[in-house]
């Protein structure tokens, strides 16, 4: 196959095949979502899927929630272009699950109801802690949502050959509207089914491509690496660290900072934490994480082969020349292997991926607003379950519109940093308080508030004054230079700072926290006494 033909074909692919397969996914999932909604009535149904999913189902849904289009397209592309340095994402994203498994998942399931703030405010003063936790939740969801929506626009440029802004905006609107529909109708139950189906499609698709591309090299990964070395202008450098981050001391430190945010961010991602409430018991929460680790681990091993395969079969020059640049490595590889049918399948899976992830984010943000902010601050009284669901549904529409507007505004901007920022915020604003409130008796309201706001604000302020925003050619505002902070990843400063503030705020508190509540939380977290039960229908 000659290169010009491939490029033309990959740009256009066969848009009808791509759209057809994606439309089939939408129809099938919509039918399932509508069926699932028939048994949804209470707020535990709407926000926690009735707590009736098995650990295996929930683990698959977690993989569907976690593996975003950025992991698939971005990591395959990064490994194809930068070799070893691209591999860090895969490892960090996987190892991070051990924090969730060993320290968070089961204890959280035993003490909370719907949101991360349930656990954080359990034994502290409700109002300030819930509001701070809601800010952390909203910030992570917003950054993540914007990244996915902008990614949807970019993906379209590549797959459907829609390069004008109006066409891309139209696709962002379609994704946003579908997200609103899924979450309004199906709630957590519908969202979970969408995520399960998407996870199976994505992992199976990546698995087939992995075996296929390995087969072309006689199942010799060493040979595949050799072919990638031959095609890469930097040659053997792709086998070694440093191609992306090895320039100087600052970029090396940036690499460590990114690694830190990846490994500590996952267990603080609110949409991941919320998934642990959809199972009946702590033991099922544990099974969920185990399944998630198996599926996510397998997937990231596939991305290593796919990235190397794209480097060996397509080569970095053709990847960078294609519309979509680094993100086009996986679709180009699909076309090289299986022509327009496989390309259509993989494109549809990538779209489904965006849709499932944004739906999970939307329901998390809605639960946080209805349950943590509206109930405790605006209404100033406990909401009835019906009100809690109604407020949540209104929030979903507002978030959907915001995501559409933000996604369109972010068109053409370099927003790849948003996913890394979401992880850095989760690791600094959320994780320290989660760990302190589960394991440290002396933790206080002041410590929680200091740690959450300190982590959130420091991560965002450091990003604003980093080369991401200004002072470099790749910045969002390349003309200006107010980059006082040299790193693109704030984690190495903001995460230790948030841990420090949590400790400092607690030891300087004059008022002690309620020891009864502390005893109740500790006993409940480890034994499951009084944990929320599944809904019976």
């Amino acid at each position, binding site marked *: 196959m000659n290169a010009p033909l491939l490029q033309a074909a990959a740009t256009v692919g066969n848009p009808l095949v791509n759209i057809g397969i994606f439309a089939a996914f939408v129809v099938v999932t919509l039918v399932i979502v509508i069926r699932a909604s028939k048994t949804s009535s209470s707020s535990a149904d709407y926000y926690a899927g009735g707590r009736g999913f098995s650990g295996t189902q929930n683990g698959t849904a977690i993989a569907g929630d976690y593996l975003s289009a950025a992991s698939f397209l971005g990591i395959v592309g990064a490994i194809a272009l930068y070799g070893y340095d691209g591999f860090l994402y895969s490892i960090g994203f996987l190892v991070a699950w051990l924090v969730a498994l060993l320290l968070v998942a089961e204890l959280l399931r035993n003490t909370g109801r719907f949101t991360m703030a349930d656990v954080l405010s359990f034994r502290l003063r409700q109002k300030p802690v819930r509001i701070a936790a809601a800010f952390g939740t909203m910030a992570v969801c917003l950054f993540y949502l914007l990244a996915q929506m902008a990614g949807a626009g970019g993906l379209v440029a590549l797959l459907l050959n829609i390069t004008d802004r109006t066409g891309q905006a139209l696709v962002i609107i379609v994704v946003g509207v579908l997200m609103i529909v899924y979450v309004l109708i199906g709630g957590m139950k519908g969202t979970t089914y969408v995520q399960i189906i998407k996870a199976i499609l994505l992992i199976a698709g990546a698995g087939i491509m992995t075996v296929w591309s390995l087969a072309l090299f006689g199942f010799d990964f060493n040979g595949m690496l050799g072919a990638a070395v031959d095609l890469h202008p930097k040659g053997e450098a792709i086998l070694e660290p440093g191609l992306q981050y090895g320039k100087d001391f600052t970029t090396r430190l940036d690499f460590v900072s990114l690694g830190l945010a990846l490994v500590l961010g996952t267990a603080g991602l609110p949409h991941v934490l919320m998934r642990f409430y959809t199972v009946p018991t702590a033991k099922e929460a544990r099974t969920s994480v185990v399944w998630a680790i198996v599926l996510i681990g397998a997937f990231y091993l596939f991305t290593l082969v796919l990235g190397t395969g794209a480097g060996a079969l397509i080569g970095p020059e053709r990847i960078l020349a294609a519309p979509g640049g680094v993100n086009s490595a996986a679709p180009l590889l699909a076309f090289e292997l299986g022509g327009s049918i496989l390309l259509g399948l993989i494109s549809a899976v990538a779209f489904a991926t965006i849709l499932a992830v944004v739906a999970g984010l939307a329901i998390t943000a809605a639960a946080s607003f209805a349950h943590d902010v509206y109930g405790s601050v605006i209404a100033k009284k406990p909401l009835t379950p019906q009100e809690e669901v109604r407020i949540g549904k209104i929030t979903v529409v507002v978030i959907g519109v915001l995501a559409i507007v933000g996604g369109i505004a972010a068109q053409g901007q370099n927003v790849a940093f948003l996913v890394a920022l979401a992880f850095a915020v989760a690791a600094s604003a959320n994780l320290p308080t989660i760990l302190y409130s589960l394991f440290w008796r002396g933790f206080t309201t002041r410590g929680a508030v200091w740690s959450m706001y300190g982590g959130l604000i420091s991560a965002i302020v450091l990003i604003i004054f980093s080369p991401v925003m200004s002072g470099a050619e790749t910045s969002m505002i390349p003309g200006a230079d107010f980059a006082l902070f040299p790193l693109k990843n704030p984690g190495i400063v903001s995460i230790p700072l948030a841990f420090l503030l949590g400790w400092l705020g607690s030891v300087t508190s004059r008022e002690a926290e309620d020891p009864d509540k502390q005893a109740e939380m*500790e006993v409940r977290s480890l034994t499951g006494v009084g944990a929320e039960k599944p809904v019976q229908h």
Partner: protein
Amino acid sequence: MSSIEHAPPSPTAEQFRAAQRSEEFVELRRTHRSFAFPMTVAFFVWYLLFVIMGAFFPQVMAIRLWDNITLGLVLGLLQFVTTFAITFAYVRFSNRVLDPRATALRERLEREAVTGPETPEAAR
């Protein structure tokens, strides 16, 4: 799935305080932490070591073990292996050691919430 239709009565604040002081609970908490904490420190240090080696000692990670296979690649794949190994070790430990104790304690507390304390210790 559990078939409980009504939530069982919740223990009172005194019962939670007593349970927290009870020998069984102190032992359960110690057992959980004595597995989870060292394991967390171990995988975290091992992961950081991997990241820092790649960032600051790339020439070590670039050592060829065999043709195109570098030390860095093998250590990266070992990160996958240790993650899977720790996961299965924790599940085994939980099923064998933690779950029976947690269940016994939970059942006792749920009974006591209805009938009052059963052990002299909880009555204190």
